[in-house]
């Protein structure tokens, strides 16, 4: 049996990947696009918040909110100024938009490095309480906050998508954008909402996770892959599927290192990704088509 402490790491990594994966889910449902720039957006929020904290010594809530608001606007602008025009010019082809999003990924990383410096910036725990000891297990205060926020965000998203006007419209657009457009749904607005929400969720994730060991401008790329794997493994069939995917990937990665050493981390990740791409490309919880 692995040490119980490892499950705390699995929980932390899984929640983080699950939040970024939720961002992917929202944009995929709302705009039919894999938003690979979400990792750097999470990084940007964390770095902006940390920079404000270090430079101006503001109360924590101000830099965190500033980071989230900035990234929400950033994500919405990416949709309005980059993704939508490119998709329209490409006649609905998604490849040019994906390439553009990847360019945004690298541009965001470099922008963060230019604005906030190329050295890591400290993250800050949201609460000073902890760590809490439960038998052999030690849980940091930030791990508790990350878990609570993840549950609240996912709960809110599930309610929003099932009960709210825009949430139901997002599902409709995700099922068939052309039909939604024909029915007069405000597809453009829905896409912007999807991007903005995804940006907000990713920004929240970045701010929470950066407390672990700080954040650097290079962090975005690995965070992007973490969220993407969470979505691929979890699937698109349920709102909470990326969280399940994130926890599964985190379990595999953590246990692979524990049992076989750190050299196995990349191999294990590749094998898992390859198996899902080949045999279960729609994830564990695949979307079901009602006939």
């Amino acid at each position, binding site marked *: 049996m692995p*040490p119980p*402490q*490892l499950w*705390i*790491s699995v929980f*932390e*990594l899984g929640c*983080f990947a699950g939040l970024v994966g939720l961002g992917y889910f929202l944009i*995929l*449902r709302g705009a*039919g696009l*894999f938003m*690979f720039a979400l990792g750097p957006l999470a990084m940007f929020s964390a770095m902006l918040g940390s920079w404000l904290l*270090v430079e101006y010594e503001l109360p924590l809530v101000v830099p965190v909110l500033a980071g989230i608001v900035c990234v929400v606007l950033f994500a919405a602008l990416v949709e309005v100024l980059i993704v939508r025009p490119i998709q329209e010019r490409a006649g609905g082809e*998604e*490849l040019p938009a*994906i*390439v553009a999003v*990847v360019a945004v990924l*690298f541009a965001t*990383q*470099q922008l963060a*490095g230019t604005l906030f410096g*190329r050295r*890591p*910036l*400290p993250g800050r*725990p949201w609460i000073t309480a902890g760590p809490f000891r439960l038998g052999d297990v*030690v849980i*940091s205060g930030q791990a508790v906050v990350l878990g609570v926020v993840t549950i609240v965000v996912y709960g809110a998203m599930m309610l929003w998508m099932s009960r709210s006007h825009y949430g139901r419209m997002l599902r409709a*657009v*995700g*099922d*068939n954008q052309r039909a939604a457009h024909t029915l007069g749904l405000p597809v453009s607005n829905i896409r912007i909402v999807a991007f903005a929400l995804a940006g907000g969720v990713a920004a929240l994730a970045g701010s929470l*996770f950066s*407390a*672990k*060991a*700080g954040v*650097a401008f*290079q962090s975005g*790329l*690995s965070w*992007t892959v*973490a969220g*993407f794997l969470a979505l*691929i493994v979890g699937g698109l069939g349920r709102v909470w599927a990326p969280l399940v995917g994130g926890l599964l990937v985190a379990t595999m990665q*953590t*246990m692979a*290192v*524990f049992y076989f*050493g*750190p*050299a196995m981390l*990349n191999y294990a*990740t*590749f094998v898992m*990704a390859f198996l899902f791409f080949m045999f279960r*490309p*729609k994830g564990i919880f695949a979307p079901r088509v009602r006939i």
Partner: protein
Amino acid sequence: MKYSLTRTIVIAVALALGVAACGAEDSATTTTAPAESTTTAAGATTTAAGATTTAGGENTATGDPIVFGMIEDTSGGASAYSLVQSIGIELAIDEINAAGGILGRPVELIRENDQNESSQTPTLTRRLIEQGAHVILMNSGSASAIAAKPVCQEGIVCLAPGNVSPGIVTPPDADFSYTIAPPSTAMGAAYAGGMPAAGVQRLALISDDSPTMEGFNDFFVPIVEEAGIEIVALEIVPLNASDASAQIARIADTDPDALMVSSLGGQTEILMHSTAALQMPDVPRYTIASIGNQPESWSLASPGVLEGTVFLGTIDSTNPRTQQLEQKLMDRLGDDFVATTGYHAQGYTSIQILKLAIENAGGTDDLVAINDAFEAITDFSPYYGQEQFTLSFGPDKHAGADGDCGIVLAVFGADNQPAGPWDVFQTSC
């Protein structure tokens, strides 16, 4: 919603391969821009008359500049200490220029950023030489300094201010390469004396996966084993990893007396310390010279994480030369000053030694003469180490440290800042 999953998966796999390739590299690097190149002089601009002003506005040096080339790392795994050393280097150069330069000539600093990618260092070193460098400062990782040796061997002094790998100064191709920091063998000797004094018999080692640390561990482990300490675990954490829990859990299973953290410092080392503090709070920790000399990294750790950690420092606050340097740093950095570290002092000292060598060589017309003059330097008093510590060189001695008293074993306090010397053991001259 229609979308081509296949195409997206292809792009995603390519992205993931890129991330994994970067993660498998020996250092944290960006995956975008190639190695950067800047050629600005440190704090200096050149007037039409060829005179050089300093950032402070003083100007007494004229004539062709003496060019110090510098390989640095501003964004990779060595950036945590490279940038700190640069502060000491730039301070020294500005002071020298304000005082009339070297032999009446201004000093100009030109830079190349190898991002701690040693495969790029030889090419970048050649670029510096082509741009007129008379000496080279190797201000990146030890692996970079080693990679540059064949280029330096062609006839230009290469001085590594902060690197500790003995490989830099051992043949082949070591006739023009120098170090001034206490070597890793001396660091091993410090812990070979200190750890038994603290009752450590079973030591676990956790290290990052940079080639610099791999080289350091290869020297360090045999030294402590020879002192009777058993290495019960050796775990590796990739640079810029998000988690080190599994590695710490494996170490905890071996029930060590102490944990040695071997890292370039920065975010990765803080992750190791944070995880160890959480999972093994009662196991004493030791570390090398990196994190103890990186004030920018101390704030990355949550309060108290570093408390009690013993590190290999080189700053003795009773050394009058260190006190002088500290005042200069405080004047220069103002509110940004946190602490004087060995990296500041080694960067500052490196410029002073190069100045002495060039003066003794009579100028820069003959770069081999600079090397001969460098080899003739003895009993140089640096700005770090204990007061009696000196640097000496010779044809067969390119590691300048005379004895082990360049090392000061220090301990972190509850505020994650150095709290003073370790009261269990200190090296002697």
